[in-house]
């Protein structure tokens, strides 16, 4: 007799939250063996656990090491479950491009934001670090993203963020994208000054901001 679906979901959640990748892998395989829905297991199990971890991160009970290992556990589970998602379940329409500004190689903050936004169901296109300004614009157009996320830790590279926004304006496509920015030196006043749509202070805040901005995005409504 397979266990109740709820019990297995709890293991998926707890495994992610408690940094227990082995538990996640067991519960993911059990989900498939029992014939439960893979898409639900990802959302109600793995992603729910990652969101709880994000809450602890925001409350300063978890820090970067904990959050990274939680995400490793989540992705270990997703890898097992994803091939079994029915096509009609994959209804993702929200897409974001993310990267670290040209001249800056610090990417741990960007990686955390990417993980949390991915867990929030936003399809993420990660350009990595030290990304030329034009690449953000090109990629956003190419994948038909609605959101561009710019990260930097350094004061020498923060002006590149304004550069990306200028490029969007020059091409006459500024209104097609929401632009959010973040990183050590970034403040709300700087975001306003350069005409970004918002800035976030940490990975959890970034997810909230992304959800707000995407809800307002006409591109998402059209999709």
């Amino acid at each position, binding site marked *: 007799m397979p266990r109740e679906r709820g019990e297995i979901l709890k293991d998926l959640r707890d495994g992610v939250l408690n940094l227990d990748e082995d538990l996640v892998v067991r519960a993911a395989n059990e989900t498939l063996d029992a014939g439960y829905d893979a898409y639900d297991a990802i959302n109600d199990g793995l992603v729910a656990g990652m969101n709880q971890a994000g809450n602890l991160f925001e409350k300063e009970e*978890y*820090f*970067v090491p904990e959050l990274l*290992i939680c995400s490793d556990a989540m992705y270990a589970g997703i890898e097992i479950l994803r091939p079994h998602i029915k096509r009609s379940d994959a209804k993702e329409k929200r897409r974001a491009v993310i990267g670290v500004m040209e001249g800056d190689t610090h990417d*741990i*903050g960007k990686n955390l934001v990417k993980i949390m936004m991915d867990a929030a169901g936003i399809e993420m296109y990660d350009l990595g670090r030290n990304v030329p300004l034009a690449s953000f614009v090109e990629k956003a157009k190419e994948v038909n993203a609605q959101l561009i996320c710019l990260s930097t830790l350094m*004061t*020498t590279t923060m002006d590149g963020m304004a550069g990306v926004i200028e490029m969007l304006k020059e091409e006459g496509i500024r209104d097609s994208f929401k632009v959010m920015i973040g990183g*050590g030196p970034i*403040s709300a006043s700087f975001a306003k000054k350069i005409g970004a749509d918002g800035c976030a202070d940490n990975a959890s805040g970034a997810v909230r901001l992304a959800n707000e901005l995407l809800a307002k995005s006409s591109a998402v409504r059209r999709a």
Partner: protein
Amino acid sequence: MNTVASIPADNQSSLERVMSYLKGETPQRVACFPLILNHAARILGVPIGEYNRDGKKMGKSHVAAFRRYGNDLILIFSTTSTLAEAMGTKMAFFDEDAPQISEPLLKQHSDLSKVKVPDFSKDGRLPVYMEATEIAVKEVGSEVCVSTVFAGPFTTAAALFPLDLMSRDLIKNKNWVHELLEICTQAGIKFIDEILQRKSLPIIVEPIGSASLVGPIHFKEFVGPYLKRLADHVHENGGGMPAVLHICGKTTPNWKVMLESDFDIWSLDNVDLGQAKAVAGHRVALVGNVTPSNLLKNTPDEVDEEARTICEKMGDKKGFILGSGCEVPINTPPENVDALINAARKYGRFDV
């Protein structure tokens, strides 16, 4: 607001002012440590890339910056990865920006045997630091406190091995991390000896110990104990010099455990400095914390206002040094550094 007439004149030299703190006497006004690092190259007018690779230019840049600004502390510094660079991590250099890590020495755990305490006479750019230190001490050491800045063990370790992997190892591979930290600590102790020999003040920066990355549990296990060994070494060999620690970013959750490392001065960044005084003011003097990006982007009047607010938070201002939260950005307009130092003259008075 910033008129010259409203700025009271100093009656102590920079060195006298700092010595007042160390002797437990009351200075005329609070000291001011804008953390001028690579920005010094702008004052001498040399490219950042040359400053970073030429000890003469680095030393002369800091002498020029002191002559220009009258800052109360000279900080010889290039990057937080300089010690790791001397141990084998590869850096990328830029004409107009500080170097950044391009390839950490360690790719996998089995590479640990490659890590050695560096030779300060030849490895990496350590000779650049040493020469810059000697020049600054020789030229202005009688007027101002000269310091040389290097990264603490945890930050050095994270520059020898990719940070995302090391973060996971704090939970999954603790012993390996401790072995790496041990060598980084020995390198740090050697650094302190080299700096003390040159009559400069060793300052330890540990940005990877920021609460933006690790919380109190990991700080207490992987950061604090190794920092304490460096602080102890300064106390035992520094002839009365204070042990100084700078951690950038957010640090509030870690203050209680940071106290256990036994430093005398903390330089803090993105925190409420008044709150830091309430938690740690009984043990440490506090340096901070005008927002670096505001130094770059704001007007002198806005800098003055931010500095005034910080001075007010510090109450009796005992054990307080006004400064920037982190590095003064390379392209900061000089009048904003002036505004910061003038704010110490205006709002940091003990003699009125």
